[in-house]
């Protein structure tokens, strides 16, 4: 049963921030509601006030500029991202990630800001966005701030968002040349949340075939999406070979901090981190080496 609450609908960002200010800590922001409503129905969350930002038009956009990169408004739906031609052209990994994110119905109504703010370590966008080095723009009624997405998540279902703050935008820098970003989640039922997921981004050196930069991000492998930085270091400056790939997989698995639940034991999750990391590093490496089309 959903407990009674007071519902307010904001039409502009200013209206929304004023409402947040007014209700202090006793509120929940709802946008697509795809995660929140489940929690409310189960009685796990029972806010006194629900502030709806779904109709704020100025938060729904996808802008790409060759020099600045990609900017996506927080209230943009998953479907909009999935179907955007500029996203497809410049950030194709986002399209494949969205295609496997939940159901069509959820993608049509759920929003990117809502997904991130929910702070679920098994969410798909987190690891991929971190691999793409994304930043988020946050505001309250007095000021705006931007932080790397990597620093946005704190713990299970907990983010840096403070009372009165609203997530406005996700920003993706221009993808460096000779870069490939790939993502895979392991699940039994297609489009389910990943039991473990891994996103890898690799940038190659201009000449030769060694790795200039690498980001390996693990989903559902800790309380938040985490970077396997030691594993990344093994790769940077090196050429990939099977021996190195084994080492990278093993290291990433050590860096993971998974828990056991009904879907997988801790040990199996670690194994999956290793298997998927190897698979994704190999895939990103092969793609980044290909000459640009």
């Amino acid at each position, binding site marked *: *049963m959903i407990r009674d609450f007071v519902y307010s609908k904001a039409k502009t960002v200013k209206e929304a921030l004023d409402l947040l200010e007014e209700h202090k800590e006793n509120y929940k922001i709802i946008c697509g509601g795809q995660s929140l409503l489940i929690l409310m129905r189960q009685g796990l969350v029972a806010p006194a006030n629900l502030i709806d930002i779904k109709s704020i038009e100025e938060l729904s956009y996808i802008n790409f500029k060759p020099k600045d990169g990609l900017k996506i408004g927080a209230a943009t739906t998953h479907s909009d991202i999935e179907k955007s031609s500029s996203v497809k052209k410049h950030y194709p990994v986002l399209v494949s990630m969205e295609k496997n994110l939940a159901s069509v119905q959820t993608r049509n109504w759920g929003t990117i800001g809502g997904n991130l703010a929910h702070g679920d370590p098994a969410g798909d966008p987190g690891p991929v966005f971190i691999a793409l080095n994304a930043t988020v723009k946050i505001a309250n009624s007095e000021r705006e701030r931007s932080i790397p997405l990597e620093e946005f998540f704190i713990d299970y279902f907990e983010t840096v968002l403070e009372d009165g703050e609203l997530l406005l935008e996700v920003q993706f820098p221009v993808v460096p040349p000779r870069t490939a970003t790939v993502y895979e989640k392991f699940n039994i039922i297609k489009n389910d949340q990943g039991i473990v997921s891994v996103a890898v981004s690799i940038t190659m050196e201009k000449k030769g075939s060694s790795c200039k930069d690498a980001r390996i991000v693990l989903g559902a492998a800790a309380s938040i999406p985490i970077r396997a930085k030691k594993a990344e270091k093994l790769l940077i400056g090196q050429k990939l070979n099977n021996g190195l790939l084994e080492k990278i997989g093993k290291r990433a698995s050590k860096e993971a901090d998974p828990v056991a639940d009904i879907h997988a034991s801790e040990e199996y999750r670690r194994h999956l981190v290793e298997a998927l990391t190897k698979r994704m590093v190999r895939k990103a490496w092969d793609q980044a080496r290909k000459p640009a089309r």
Partner: protein
Amino acid sequence: MMKKYSVINTPIHNIDGIAKITGRAEYAFDIKLPHMLYGKILRSPYPHAKILKINTKKAEGLTGVKAVVTGKDTLGIKQGIWRRFKELCDEEILARSKVRYIGEPVAAVAAVDEDTAEEALDLIEVEYESLPGVFGPLEAIKQGAPQLHEHAERNINVTRHIEWGDVDEGFKKADHVREDWFRCSSQHHVCMETHNAVASFTPDKKLTVWTSTQSHYYIQVLLSWVLGLRENDVRVISRYTGGGFGSKFELDSAQFCSSLLSMKLFKPVKIILTREEEFMATKRRTPMFYYLRTGVKKDGTFLAKEGRVFTEGGAYTSMGATALYLTGFFQAFPYVWPSYRYDGYRVYTNTAPTSAMRGFGAPQATFCAETQIDLIANDLGIDPIKIRRKNAMYPGYEVPGQATIQSCGLSQCLDKIEKWIKSQGKLPPNRGIGIAAYGFMSGGIFNWFDTPYAFSSAVIQVKIDGKVDLYIGSQDMGQGSNTTMTMICAEELGVQVEDIRLHMGDTESCPVDLGAWGSRETLMQGNAVKMAAAKAKQQIIEYAAAKLSPNIVYDLDIKDRWVHLIARPERGLSYYDVVKEAIRGKDGQPIIARGHYTPHRKGMISPAYSFGVQAVDAEVDPDTGKITLKNCVTAHDCGQVINPLGVKGQLEGAMAMAAGYGFTEDLPMDEGKILNPNLVDYKVLRATEMPETKVIEVETYEPEGPFGAKEAGEGLTNPTAGALGNAVFHATGLSIKNLPITPEKVLEALKEKKKEEKK
């Protein structure tokens, strides 16, 4: 030449299809009555506890609450569906003094809306004294384990023994003996429509209940019993049922609590179980621990088999006694075993009761048996098809003391599957094809419900315009029996499907049928319908004969609305004209006929058996253990096919359900608490996980079935877990004996194997 059949074996879309897909089909879910109240049920948070005190004062004081009932408001009858055996009737539904599983109902509230009713639940104060619980059958059967029921020492609920031949002698003669332990997991039915009921008790002391059930007759009888009403003062209506799969022929908490509340208030009360309640507190598939010892000759000839089973009963008997017998019977299926010994123990545990689910003990039996047969074939270096063919049942085979097999197309099924496997050529690495042979019953014979009625009946009334009113007692729960019965009626009477107007799902207007379970409708209700239609046809033919004046009356028949001489089909009359005159000639009485069916002298189990062989082609990812289904081909003998579309639908549905049982679905628990009572964490297969499925019909003629037809829906859930397991075995060399076959289990086994190889 006229075609043999004009309706049967034609693909016909479900006659309820349009009403369902346009949302006009009225389920009990949709019923709204004037002054209707909404009910909610308070359930035990303890797996095992004494109820010391229940205080309902505060809840009753809440604005909008109209009534609260507890066990004290009941007659305290321990009910059950095995009415013939008092000790197997052990469930009160509203517990009076003790709760035995998490989710057991202890009180119910009726209020002006659902929210108020739910709020009131929080205000009911129940004082419990927690008792130690026991959760697995192997622990519960031990001396000194906490005891659930006073009458059941060591928590033994039911035992079953089946034996024929000289088992010990068989093992002595065997060249090869294999022993294996298996664990079969639980599974939930996951009906789209959760259990629900609207009960309306009126001042004339009559109770009407709209509900979602597989047997309105059972619910009528059970409700009248526990409420102290006359059987026919209770009317049960179930026009549409949104899925059953075995979960909806026992009396449930929604039906009982809404009736109790309505009787207290003289107002309609509606209760709909939430998905969570559905998972936690309705019945589920029986988990089993299976020990099998099997002796064979070098050439693969089966000699002796011994099976021992411990099943997790949960808190009450439910339909568990049936599952325990059937798993033992089907353990020996579909082969010729010269000797066989089975001992089954159903053990009470402090978990949600386990009961009937599609296959009724046979999917568990088939998984274990078929897995072991592939292991034996592998031990002896014999082809899996060959070992099965060597020992296959055949038409006319007698299962000693149990059953006589009349029609049996098992060998033809093996041939077809062998041919398909060969057509696949050499498979890539990590791919494998596994097979499983199976059989199933076409309705049960044993009258545990103790009905004095025929097992199935039908009534037909032919109206002046040739329209046929067909009254049946069987329940369509999505399996398509309404369409099947309409087709059988149309074929036998010699009309078309659109001439039939079907009446079902109402105890007030329909004759008795025991309901849709045990794959009984096609054969049992089908025979009753066929008999009624034949009798109506006879009356029409009598009048036509007077007009056509042939030599002898038996020479006439009706086909596709044409009443004619069989030998000279062109000589005839329009069905419509004959009907009109026949009714006029009967002094204006419509043509009425009745049909019924009860099996007599057909053994212990069923009048007829379906057979089949399924092949599952699967790929195993050696890095993660993940299984991907590639193909599923089933050669199936269901006698004469009535509706090919219906069989296809049953096959695909069964495949999804049984593959889920094989590798994704499970109900993990912690001290009796189900940990995944929702559709996010409980993994039902979706369209994306379904492989290409193909059905190869092997037609036989079953003398006991209508037009030679037999079971075509439930048995199809039997082979898949075993075939899938065998596919994994042939892909990896690993046999997983613990369901479900999850990627984690496959991976663990792969790691073990690697370790072994290093040694």
